[in-house]
């Protein structure tokens, strides 16, 4: 069975190679090749999953060694895949949601003449992401990590003719570089500490290393996670990444790639468990980000950017949970999976709306769309209910558990983290209700554009609505399937471990509190956007609103601190280079040239002076030899 693992990766990789190298001949069928290979990977995943289910919990880890990548003594890097409960979960999420989004893209990208290339990139992304989650060592994981970064870059900038898309791609690339640096440093530290970077030996020998070193490794891993998962302070790229086509936003920048950071932390759980200081930092990053993203999400009028803020916020929940250690690992992954369903569904719904509205993204120009797009409305609505944590739907089970776990951390920290998570739940309810109301309810607010084209909202084709419907099922039932009877907990526990913690408040209290804040959030949103008509031009708003519209000044901060600072640093370095370094270099060169010219005169062409030189040299040689003896 384990020989199938490589096929998981091979199928989309083959697709990427064929589609990207195949040329125009494949334009007509390229999208189907991509979709079929992606689905093939999903089918293999399901086969492997049923196989795992048939085994005892302790035998559910399959390994496939392909070849030794770096066969150097003392530096062994293998290409080995590891399929266990954790990676299996990811494989199903990635290939499942991935295949649905492939299908969706067939319709969504129908009029794009570079559709074949788009599917090539999507397949490339799948292959890289699967390498990331299947790798059995950190070096191979790094390959996948960089691979998804590349695919993300290519897809954000897919509409490269738009300067904004090109810039966004560059921005994502640069910010991710910072995180990637963290990962590479973490790997190097691991190698110097443990002499290897394979999961098994590293994670089982954590006890041998000092806590200081482990904290260093853990913080570098966190930096990597922050870059890839858009956590504060490396969050600034995610909003701009929405410049990419919407299926990309759904797959890469909501459901899968951005959760790679959570995977990294959970996978390296043993390291974090042994470095409590680093864990504290993780929870702080998660809590700050979940509020940060939620606040940004409240102020955005661009539907995709509002959803992007929401993504950031939800991943903040996952990181918070992952930072709680064994109390939260399982719930981080559970929320990750349910989020994968409902957030992908929401993005696809947004894409469907845009598809019907001439690619308009401003929600102030929507309104009342439920009549025109019933399927989109229902699926989007189910996703909405899931994300705000409506009882019985997916988000309810997973988010509620995270809030409970945060309280269960205990002490002041527990109260602060739990409070932040609760507050986040209220804000989530507010901004998602706002999105829902502005898009599907109220009066229609769209106007003819400057060319006089008025949008004619219509339902999207089947290839687009079917994935939305499937994902809506996931949004509704996944949480229940996972949460009731702690099925997901039992599935993942052998890998991540689990502790109950000691919560100062009972689970029921937390659930009730969650319901209360949910109602408050929805209520405020209803009061603001449901009862009153939505103004077509955004009001000026409070100071916080204005800051939130500017992503809480993240770019201004980066510009002032990093860009300006960097410019000053560069300028001073250039100055030093020009005056000092060049001065020394040019001066040396000039003096060498002068010396050369002078020495050259000794070579006057007369044999007699050559002979004198030889004689002098011989005399010195003899004298020096004698002198050495004398000394």
């Amino acid at each position, binding site marked *: 069975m384990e020989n199938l693992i490589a096929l998981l990766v091979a199928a989309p990789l083959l697709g990427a190679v064929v589609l990207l190298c195949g040329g125009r001949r494949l334009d007509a069928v390229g999208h189907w090749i991509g979709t079929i290979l992606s689905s093939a990977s999903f089918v293999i995943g399901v086969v492997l999953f049923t196989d795992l289910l048939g085994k005892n919990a302790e035998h559910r880890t399959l390994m496939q060694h392909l070849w030794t990548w770096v066969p150097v003594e003392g530096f062994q890097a293998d290409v080995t895949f590891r399929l266990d409960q954790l990676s299996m979960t990811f494989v199903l999420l990635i290939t499942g949601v991935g295949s649905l989004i492939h299908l969706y893209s067939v319709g969504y990208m129908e009029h794009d003449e570079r559709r074949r290339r788009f599917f090539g990139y999507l397949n490339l992304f799948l292959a890289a992401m699967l390498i990331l989650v299947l790798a059995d060592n950190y070096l191979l994981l790094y390959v996948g990590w960089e691979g998804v970064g590349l695919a993300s870059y290519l897809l954000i900038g897919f509409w490269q003719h738009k300067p904004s898309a090109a810039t966004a791609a560059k921005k994502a690339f640069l910010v991710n570089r910072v995180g990637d640096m963290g990962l590479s440093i973490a790997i190097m530290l691991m190698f110097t500490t443990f002499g290897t970077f394979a999961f098994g030996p590293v994670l089982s020998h954590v006890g041998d290393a000092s806590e200081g070193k482990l904290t260093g490794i853990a913080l570098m891993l966190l930096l990597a996670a922050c870059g890839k998962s858009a956590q504060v302070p490396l969050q600034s790229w995610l909003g701009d990444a929405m410049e990419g086509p919407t299926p990309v936003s759904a797959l890469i920048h909501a459901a899968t790639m951005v959760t790679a950071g959570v995977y990294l932390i959970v996978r390296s759980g043993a390291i974090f468990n042994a470095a409590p200081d680093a864990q504290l930092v993780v929870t702080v990053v998660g809590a700050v980000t979940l509020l940060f993203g939620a606040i940004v999400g409240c102020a955005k009028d661009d539907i995709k950017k509002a959803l992007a803020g929401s993504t950031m916020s939800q991943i903040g929940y996952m990181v918070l949970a992952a930072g709680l250690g064994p109390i939260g690992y399982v719930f981080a992954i559970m929320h990750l999976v349910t989020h994968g369903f409902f957030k992908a569904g929401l993005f696809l719904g947004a894409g469907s709306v845009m598809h019907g509205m001439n690619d308009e993204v401003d929600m102030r120009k929507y309104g009342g769309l439920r009549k025109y797009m019933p399927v989109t409305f229902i699926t989007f609505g189910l996703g909405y209910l899931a994300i705000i944590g409506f009882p019985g739907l997916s988000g309810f089970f997973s988010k509620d558990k995270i809030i409970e776990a945060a309280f269960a951390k205990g002490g002041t920290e527990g109260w602060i983290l739990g409070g932040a998570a609760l507050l986040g739940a209220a804000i989530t309810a507010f901004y998602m209700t706002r999105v829902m109301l502005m898009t599907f309810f109220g009066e229609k607010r769209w106007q003819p554009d400057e060319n006089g084209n008025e949008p004619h909202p219509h339902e999207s084709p089947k290839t687009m609505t079917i994935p939305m419907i499937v994902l809506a099922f996931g949004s509704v039932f996944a949480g229940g399937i996972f949460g009731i009877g702690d099925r997901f907990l039992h599935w993942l526990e052998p890998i991540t471990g689990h502790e109950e913690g000691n919560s100062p408040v009972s689970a029921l209290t937390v659930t009730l509190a969650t319901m209360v804040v949910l109602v408050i959030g929805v209520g405020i949103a209803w009061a603001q956007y449901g009862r009153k008509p939505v103004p077509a031009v955004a009001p000026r708003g409070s100071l916080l609103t204005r800051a939130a519209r500017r992503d809480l000044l993240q770019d201004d901060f980066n510009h002032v601190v990093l860009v300006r600072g960097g410019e000053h640093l560069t300028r001073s370095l250039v100055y030093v280079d020009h005056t000092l370094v060049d001065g020394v270099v040019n001066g040396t060169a000039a003096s060498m040239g002068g010396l050369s*010219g002078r020495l050259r005169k000794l070579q006057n062409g007369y044999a007699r002076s050559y002979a004198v*030189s*030889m004689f002098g040299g011989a005399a*010195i040689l003899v004298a020096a*030899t004698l002198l050495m003896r004398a000394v």
Partner: protein
Amino acid sequence: MSATAVHSLWTTAATAADPISKIDAPKIEYGQLSPTLIILGAALIGVLVEAFVPRKSRYYAQVFVSAVALCAAFAAVVALAADGYGTTKAHIAAMGAIAVDGPALFLQGVILLSGLVGLFTFAERRLDPEAHGNRVDSFAAQGASVPGSDSEKAAVKAGFTTTEVFPLLLFAVAGMLVFPSANDLLTLFVALEVFSLPLYLLCALARRKRLLSQEAAVKYFLLGAFASAFTLFGIALLYGYAGSMSYSTIAQVVDGSITNINPALADTMGNDALLLIGGAMIVMGLLFKVGAVPFHMWTPDVYQGAPTPVTGFMAAATKVAAFGALLRLLYVVLPGLRWDWRPVMWGVAIITMLGGAIVAITQTDIKRLLAYSSIAHAGFILAGVIATTRDGVSSVLFYLGAYSFVTIGAFAVVTLVRDAGGEATHLSKWAGLGRRSPLVAAVFAVFLLSFAGIPLTAGFAGKFAVFKAAAAGGAAPLVVVGVLSSAIAAFFYIRVIVLMFFSEPRPDGPTVAVPSPLTMATIGVAVAATLVLGVAPQYFLDLANQAGVFVR
């Protein structure tokens, strides 16, 4: 005188002669000396060819004999090495005169290969335009004719060629084969003269710019004779010190394991002043041959004046042979004096590296530039010599192998770039060569990069090995100077590349002649060696490492 007296004289003479008749006949291991003997034999055949073969066929006969002899000798070297003479069976042959060991065989192999690819450039006859319907090579029609005289014109018109260059080449190669394997001072001196004299002659035989060529030959001869005198005097002093010519005996006297004094030399034996002065003078003669500062001044003039094929061969093979002899002298004869000669050699290495690199900066003639480059390289090799470790020996061996191919290849390219006056050696004429003849310029660029020691070329591997050995041998400051001079040297190498590829070609620029397969083979082998030794040097490093032990 009475008959009895006569008789008694006879008989006493006979009795006196008796002990002499008991001396054993010298035992010569012909098999182990076969590489040298083959070359010498072929050289003698070459002389006979000159005497008996009709003029028209001589060229072919000579090239054939030379090529066969060089190949056969190389095969003999390989066979000896395969038989273990380089490692386990290494010993001293020919009554203590010749060492057959790893370094000797390795260097003999390199010299023979250099001789072979050198031979190809000697035999090249397509570069110069035909003179009166005869194909001509790089050598004077008739060496004895006065330049510009009627007899010269007549010789050119008659289509004469100096086919004597081939036996001369073989004699030089034979001397070079003996030089690094000589195991007594007398053999060393004879070998020195055997390979020097043919080279003096070859230098004088250029077809174009004959006066320059003859001037170069005279200078080389005068200064070479001067250096030989030093060497000979040094040999005499060492004999006075040790009472023997043999390396091993001298070494034993130096380290004190032989103390009995030859009564005839009672005044001088064991006098350290003689040892130090004599040793320094012999070393000086060898430093002259390798072109180390301050004994280098002949190099630019001779390299420039000599026919370019000769320059290429000489620059490569002489250096190999002379460094081989220097290594053996320092490692076998004078290791006991390490603390005396090492500091001095440090100084020589430093001024050689810096001097060669610095003066090269302002050169305007490509052949002179390469001459100064060879001086700087002599300095780099000296750094490896000074290491006084086994790694030092093997790194020097590797460096010599790598360097000789690159050098011959570079000079072979120089022969291709020509204008109406023959080879266009002035650098200004090379401007824009890369635009007109990208392939030739690219090949030359490869050689220059290798000289500069850029990774993935033979030069880098060699330089790295030598510097590593020097640093491990406690000569770290020398390595620092070496790296600095490499940086200086890189300047003028890269400058030529820039000139070739990034300058506008001159309207009156030179043309690149299309050579025969012979020169192509030379350049091809050189490029291949440069890249193979650069990309995958391990096999050859291992080979050099195996060969890195001198027999004592």
